[in-house]
């Protein structure tokens, strides 16, 4: 692992975080001159939660994507393609609109439950080391099911505005979240990332297959449970606060492994950094787009991520065809 790319990545992340706090600069600079306490309140209550959420959610998607790809030995596994984020969204929608609990903690618990359910269903459907086709089909089926059930839950919700309310959140949004809400997403995400980091070496040894990893003394079954639970907890908490954001968990680990010579476990740290950077950058793009209104950030990641995904699928086909 080379130090320079990591240093550059860290610097870019810091720069993006600072930009996320300080942009748009002219009005903030003006306010700092005129009314310092108001400017700080603005930074603290509006800008900081948004930047924190982008950083933590992106890092969580990157780290869990790297862990899931390592676990399934498949570069097309990610929290969104496996249906985890859709499951989390379903859990949160049911909690908020059918059960009527809207406190951040209740939402987070509902989303974590939904994410866990989706991942367990995926393991049951596709098996622990799934072929690409099986994995994608199982993920597609789970996403479709979770999506349909989410729509059903919203249709059955007592509130007539449920669809309208939920729409922007479901598309993924970091806007207008309080610092407390940000903490409800960021704390579980950072804890989950820290715990995933312990699995770096066992995940690297899975490169040689489960048998060898076990002969090294790694408990592969326990590792699978840990990765599923940590991903569900971290991603679930983020989805509860910010909605579903796609493709970051797919793209970040793929770039990260280029920095680690292909090692899947060692890629967790750079994948977290790249994930945080991607989401901060996507949020900056959302804010500076001259559209006169705010796009949901999930739209931006999907617009950028989907072509990359298509390229990846085509690339794999060419490689298999050769």
């Amino acid at each position: 692992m080379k130090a320079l790319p990591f240093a550059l990545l860290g610097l870019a992340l810091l720069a993006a975080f600072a930009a996320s706090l300080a942009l748009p600069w002219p009005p903030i600079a003006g306010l700092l001159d005129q009314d310092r306490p108001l400017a700080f309140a603005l930074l603290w209550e509006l800008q900081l939660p948004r930047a924190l959420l982008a950083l933590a959610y992106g890092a969580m998607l990157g780290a869990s994507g790297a862990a899931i790809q390592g676990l399934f030995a498949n570069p097309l596994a990610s929290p969104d393609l496996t249906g985890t984020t859709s499951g989390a969204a379903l859990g949160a929608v049911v909690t908020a609109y059918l059960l009527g609990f809207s406190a951040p903690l209740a939402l987070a618990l509902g989303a974590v439950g939904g994410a866990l359910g989706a991942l367990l269903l995926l393991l049951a459907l596709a098996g622990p080391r799934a072929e690409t086709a099986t994995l994608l089909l199982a993920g597609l089926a789970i996403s479709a099911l979770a999506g349909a059930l989410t729509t059903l839950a919203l249709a059955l919700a007592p509130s007539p505005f449920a669809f309208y309310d939920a729409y922007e959140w479901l598309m993924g949004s970091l806007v207008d979240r309080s610092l407390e809400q940000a903490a409800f997403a960021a704390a579980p995400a950072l804890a989950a990332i820290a715990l995933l980091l312990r699995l770096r070496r066992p995940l690297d040894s899975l490169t040689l297959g489960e048998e060898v990893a076990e002969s090294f003394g790694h408990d592969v079954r326990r590792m699978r449970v840990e990765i599923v639970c940590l991903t569900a907890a971290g991603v679930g908490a983020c989805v509860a606060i910010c909605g579903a954001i796609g493709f970051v968990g797919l793209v970040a680990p793929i770039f990260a492994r280029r920095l680690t010579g292909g090692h899947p476990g060692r890629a967790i740290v750079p994948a977290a950094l790249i994930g945080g950077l991607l989401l901060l950058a996507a949020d900056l793009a959302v804010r500076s787009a001259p559209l006169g209104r705010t796009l949901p950030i999930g739209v931006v990641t999907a617009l950028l991520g989907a072509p990359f995904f298509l390229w990846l699928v085509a690339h794999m086909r060419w490689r298999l065809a050769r």
Partner: protein
Amino acid sequence: MTPLLEARGAALAGRLEPTDFVVERPELVCLVGPNGSGKTSLLHALARIGGASGEVRIAGKRPEELAPAARRKLLSFLPASRDVAWPLSALDLVRLGSSRAEADEAMAELDLEPWAGRRVDRLSTGERSRVLIARALAPKPRLLLLDEPVANLDPLWQLRLMQTLRRSVAQGQGAVVAMHDLDLAARYADRLVLMESGAIVADGGPEAMLGSERLSEVFGIKRVGGLWQPSASLPRSGGEGDHP
């Protein structure tokens, strides 16, 4: 003296009967037996893979009680599959279980230096096999557990690998190796262990084992004029009588 390997009642549900198996001193032991006779299962049970029961001690130590770092010095397991999940370089792959110096030495032993920086998915199956064998040899553990190491190797490398294993044994390592080539096994092994239906059915010196009735019976082959032949002529598709 503590035996190099002592297994008591080692078993895998549905695959391997409770098995006692002892290797007193550094030896090259070859496991032979038809497909599905339990060679891989015995290796799994010895390497404590897949929820194996019973007790295994290597140089007096139970592998389960050791952390990964210490365990790599005790045993290495080479699976029959040559699949590698991620396109690491050959050197990085060998280094997954050992230090840089150990990896370099193992790669030199198998003439792999020119491929050190090459991605393993761009190697031929035989070259990748050698890289994976180097991975298993590199930590120089007390016990090598190798599943079909000569599969995919060309004749020269089959011989060179067996010579390498002999040198490992001379340096105090034990090796339990599943093989299909009876003649190659008999030529290099100190002991042949014959397996059938998930159990050890015969165990002895290579010469005696190779000439034994039991081996002929288990495999359904016999030696005719120095060549192995099926004991009973098998019916052929569209068969019109027996072909020699």
